[in-house]
């Protein structure tokens, strides 16, 4: 139990996918203008990640032991079809959400956080439950970073920032400061 808790906390805060591993930077910079959109994209990512973790476990246990060199290709195909599936479900259930997420929904496929999750789970040799917990922590960590970033960006909209620094340059510097703050979590578990 404590093992699972440790996996969860460490992926959520210490090894945050966005701020420590640089995975999923494209949506992090692209979809963080508004809080609610950022939150929804985060939730969609959590969902895709949980399904990915399940697929990866299945592939690793039953198929890839026979053909390890197909790992990358089969991961990508499975993830792409999952995202396609989610896109169809969201389009059917909530057209407003579909419109809000726009182009970035298909881009979850090319979100490195998803493939990164698949590769990290395989490298660490996690089982099904550990993998799911890891995916949940990673997804929520991604959402946390995205929402924090969106909040900061909304604040800076009105701030008197020089025109030259506005845009990606400022966002990256904000992300750097956020990442420095998250490094503080590294001391969370060293005492125990």
């Amino acid at each position, binding site marked *: 139990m404590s093992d699972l808790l440790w996996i969860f906390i460490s992926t959520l805060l210490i090894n945050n996918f966005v701020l420590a591993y640089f995975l999923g930077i494209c949506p992090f910079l692209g979809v963080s203008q508004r809080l609610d959109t950022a939150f929804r994209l985060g939730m969609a990512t959590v969902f895709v990640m949980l399904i990915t973790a399940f697929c990866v476990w299945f592939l690793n246990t039953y198929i890839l032991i026979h053909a390890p060199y197909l790992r990358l290709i089969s991961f990508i195909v499975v993830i*792409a079809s999952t995202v396609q599936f989610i896109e169809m479900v969201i389009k059917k259930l909530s057209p407003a959400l579909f419109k809000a997420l726009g182009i970035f929904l298909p881009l979850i496929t090319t979100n490195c956080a998803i493939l990164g999750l698949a590769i990290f789970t395989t490298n660490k040799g996690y089982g099904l439950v550990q993998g799911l917990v890891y995916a949940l922590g990673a997804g929520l960590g991604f959402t946390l970073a995205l929402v924090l970033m969106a909040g900061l960006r909304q604040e800076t909209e009105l701030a008197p920032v020089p025109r*030259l620094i506005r845009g990606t340059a400022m966002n990256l*510097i904000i992300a750097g400061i956020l990442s420095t703050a998250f490094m503080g979590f590294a001391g969370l578990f060293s005492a125990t």
Partner: protein
Amino acid sequence: MPKTKPDAYQEFIKGLWRENPVFVQVLGMCPMLAVTNSAENAIVMGGATFFVLVGSSCLVSALQRWIPRQVRIATYIIIIATFVTVIDLSLESLLPRLHKELGPFIPLIVVNCMILGRQEAFASRHSVRLALVDALGMAIGFFFALFALGSVREILGVGSLLGVNLFGPNFEPWVIMILPPGGFLTLGLLLLFFNWLKERKEQLLRRLDAMEAQGQ
């Protein structure tokens, strides 16, 4: 600007500077930030991306007539994944130490948005020759950006470049530069520098225009 027919030289040169994938289009950030904590890693990553981009661009543009539109993205990804598997396994046997250091980021070239973007925006609509030239330009531009970021971070974070010590024993390294926040900060400042260059050029042009208007 007026362009009657695509000119190979223009297609090549645009990837290097005017449409540099990193500094102007801000694509392919994930590998960009993650592996650039030393110039050596940046070179290996740039080389691997170069191989994948050039190979898949040629293949995609050669096969464009047979790829159905509905499944084109999936097809591109499978083509890219094939090239990445090739380079991943080759690096593992040729340069095991660097492969271990780069870890999961070599397989992650598959999801580099820059590569998929080039297939969708360029290679799938142009001849093999132009696609090759475009891929070469973009890949060299990406390589240049990786190397710039990697060497700045290594010089400030370790005090060396490609393992050669630059400042002698009294240099206090800025450890933060090789840690994750350093990546964000360095790239942010580099982008700021590029914005400044662009702004200065525009101001210069405006001043020249004004001078011409005065002269007449």
